[in-house]
């Protein structure tokens, strides 16, 4: 699954650690999400969507 997390984070000039702190996850999790090594659970995807004020499908795109 592709996502726009890195772009959205860069637009706000946040580091991975900043975003991790806002989502209450580890920096490693943010890195794994951005590099596509890990797809978030539904609750985490909702938290991300709420944080950036965008619908989930505007942040995550299914590659299937």
């Amino acid at each position, binding site marked *: 699954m592709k996502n726009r997390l890195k772009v959205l984070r*860069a637009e706000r000039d946040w580091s*991975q*650690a900043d975003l*991790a702190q806002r989502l209450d*996850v*580890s*920096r*490693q999790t943010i890195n794994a999400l951005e590099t596509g090594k890990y797809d978030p659970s539904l609750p*985490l995807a909702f938290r991300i969507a709420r944080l950036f004020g965008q619908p989930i499908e505007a942040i995550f795109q299914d590659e299937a």
Partner: protein
Amino acid sequence: MNALKKKNRPTEAKPAALAIIGVSGIGGSMALLLTGDGEWPSYVGAVGMVLAAVAFGATAGRLYGGDPVRPALRGFLIGFLVSIIAYALLLLGTIRLDAAGLAHGALGYAAALAPALALAGAFASLGIYLRREPDDLLRRVAVESLLWGLGGVLALATAWGILEGFGLAPHLQLWVVAPVFAVLVGVAHGLVAWRYR
């Protein structure tokens, strides 16, 4: 963007140093456990293996991500270390009891159960950690590490048991399974975390 990249870049020297210390600790302790002359070196080796594996596993997230230890993980480490130290002390007490010829009847059963209960405490700490940790990925890393540890220790125990039956391997006490499991989980935790680095 360059500033972002620089800020997020993990340092290279610290992971390498911690990995070397962890692997050396596990290797040295395992050698002591398997080749130590007499009882005490074996127990020291077993406890050393567990502590080295815990240290390696616990620092894995930090090694590859540069994160501080999270509160849920800190709680688990404290609970786990207390349980494992209690396990080691109770195991030593049990052995001394046996050496003194007192491990029979009800006292013998109680002495055998005591270290096992301490070990169950270590797993209770793990269960609490899995419930408290809000990070999906860290929970997945922990569960995958446990599966590797469980699969590894069962495979090793099966192979060793067969070799013992053939007379190709020396007899090992069953309590060795617990420290070997802890080591496998600790090492697997480092490797699984590395996969998601």
